[in-house]
């Protein structure tokens, strides 16, 4: 039914193109890496595969954040925590897969437990030797945390800045907790030294390519799901809550449940991103809970354009590519560049790259007196700002289509 809508709505061109590109990349990049000889001009080196795979995970995380921030106005400064929890769940699976190949050759206990004198496996490590169990945990742990956290916070009507600050407190508390060696998650060193995933060597090129493809496909799926959510009546409700929460309440909607659903879905998406990320970078440690990481995610979404589906993806890819470039070529300037980007985006690109592009395009089209009705239908995610419509209307002579413009009462 939703798929029907997807293919029927030819207007959602941008989403379709994005999904198509992602799926194509999922097939082509691994091919170019595995089947093409390294001497060929088309060869994609393994480290580029690993790098872009990582970016795609970040893009998924940014998309997850955008679902709550862009569409529901919840600025979560704790999405890194959901990402990290998903990553830890996957890391625990990978850790158990090492089996007796650890340095101490202990068949059951991971190395860090051996040298910290753990007598036996802590109860919460049970089950992680099974992929299906770990996969469920990847979804369940972040989802459950988000559900419980959101259930309390949204019910108590904690909003805006307060919510942002307590999400930050949440990730900070988790950071401190995971740093503790007594927690049984490897402390500061985290989980590392992975060998196999589903029986395949994590370092093999083929595995890397498969993980890359999995990331791209998952991202494509996430784009589709996000699109389906925001296009549904619920999605409209989500934006309604963002714009006028009390109005939705007085219409009988439970705004807290509306937010809770989005928050939980978003956390699950973030968790999946983390789970895909860990085998590709080969380590998960409490550093991922750093509040600054979560803030960086916000910037990716902001740069690309919040409240759009493609924006956060573009933002995550661009900022991270920039980060890779700067930290390699101009290491001393990396923080200046990142800091400057934060400031510049908030000041000059409040709608991000995609939002800016849309505004520019709408403006241009409006000036050409194209029918705006058609435009409005183009992408429900990116409503053209009314301000621009008005300014265009001041252009004399060609504004008959929409009838007399009402004067705003200001």
């Amino acid at each position: 039914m939703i798929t029907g809508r997807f293919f029927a709505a030819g207007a959602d061109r941008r989403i379709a193109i994005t999904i198509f590109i992602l799926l194509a990349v999922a097939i082509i990049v691994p091919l170019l890496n595995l089947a093409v000889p390294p001497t060929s001009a088309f060869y994609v080196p393994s480290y580029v595969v690993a790098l872009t795979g990582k970016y795609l995970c970040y893009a998924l995380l940014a998309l997850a954040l955008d679902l709550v921030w862009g569409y529901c106005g919840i600025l979560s400064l704790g999405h890194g925590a959901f990402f990290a929890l998903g990553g830890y769940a996957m890391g625990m699976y990978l850790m158990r897969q090492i089996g007796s190949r650890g340095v101490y050759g202990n068949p059951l206990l991971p190395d860090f437990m051996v040298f910290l004198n753990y007598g036996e496996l802590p109860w919460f490590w049970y089950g992680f030797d099974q992929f299906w169990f770990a996969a469920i945990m990847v979804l369940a742990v972040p989802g459950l945390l988000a559900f419980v956290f959101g259930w309390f916070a949204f019910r108590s009507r904690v909003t805006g800045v307060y919510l942002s600050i307590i999400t930050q407190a949440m990730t900070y508390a988790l950071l401190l907790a995971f740093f503790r060696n007594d927690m049984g998650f490897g402390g500061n060193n985290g989980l590392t030294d992975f060998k196999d995933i589903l029986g395949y060597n994590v370092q093999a090129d083929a595995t890397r390519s498969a993980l890359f493809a999995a990331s791209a496909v998952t991202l494509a799926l996430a784009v589709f799901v996000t699109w389906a959510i925001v296009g549904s009546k619920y999605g409209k409700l989500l934006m309604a809550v963002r714009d006028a929460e009390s109005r939705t309440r007085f219409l009988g909607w439970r705004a807290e449940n509306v937010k809770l659903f989005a928050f939980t879905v978003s956390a699950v998406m973030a968790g999946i991103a983390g789970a895909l990320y860990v085998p590709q970078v080969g380590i998960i440690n409490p550093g991922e809970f750093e509040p600054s990481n979560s803030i960086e995610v916000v910037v990716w979404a902001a740069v690309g354009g919040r409240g759009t589906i493609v924006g956060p993806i573009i933002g995550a890819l661009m900022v991270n590519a920039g980060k890779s470039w700067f930290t390699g070529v101009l290491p001393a300037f990396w923080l200046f560049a990142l800091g400057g980007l934060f400031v510049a985006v908030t000041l000059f690109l409040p709608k991000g790259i995609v939002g800016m592009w849309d505004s520019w395009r709408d403006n241009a089209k409006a000036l050409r007196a194209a029918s705006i009705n058609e435009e409005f239908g183009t992408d429900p995610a990116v409503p053209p700002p009314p301000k621009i419509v008005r300014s265009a209307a001041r252009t004399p002579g060609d504004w008959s289509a929409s009838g007399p413009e009402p004067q705003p009462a200001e």
Partner: protein
Amino acid sequence: MSKSNTILYLDGVSVSFDGFRAINNLSLVLDKGEMRAIIGPNGAGKTTMMDIVTGKTRPDAGEVYFDGQVDLTKHDEAEIAMMGIGRKFQKPTVFESHTIEDNLMLALKGPRSIFPALFHRRSAAEARQIDDILGLIRLGDKRDELAAILSHGQKQWLEIGMLLAQDPKLLLVDEPVAGMTDAETEETARLLKDIARDHSVIVVEHDMHFVRELGVKVTCLHEGSVLSEGSLDFVSADERVVEVYLGR
């Protein structure tokens, strides 16, 4: 006083913020099917009274009953809205980034939980209802435009339309004609009188011309309690009302 035949029953309600008594021993009764206009100076407690009725503010003391038997102090906004109390804010509040049609769609009576909304498809009946309301509030030609581009008065109407879509038993309408032209005001009065035929309505308004046009019983609030109640002529003749509100 018997509650049984009332749509709204407030008795001895008080609420204070940081020592300031916004509502002070307020008693007010609205019969089923009645339309009532409430006037009073700024700070008289009109909006706070609406906050109490709609569950936004809990009273410190007093009884608030809806439909004769429902204790409203035990419910929150969403529940109260579902029971059938609709509210229009003083400042028109519509979903500006949605089209007018979507605004109404979100307000339409129906299940209010997440999953039905997620898999919702518009039925023919719903489409008809929306068409009807669009006609009523005279926004039919703008159904696909964003609410943000509407004029102030049109937003007021859209909000009233959203109230109607909710199909409530009781409508609380806060300053519906603020910022409207005279013609629009008359139109609004007509609209409200239409609505009052099969709904109970409370209208808060400063515009005495408009109140006169409605031609209903009037309650004047002052410092959180009822100062005077009766027909508009009776109330405007009341010395105290003249003193605190209408001016000499």
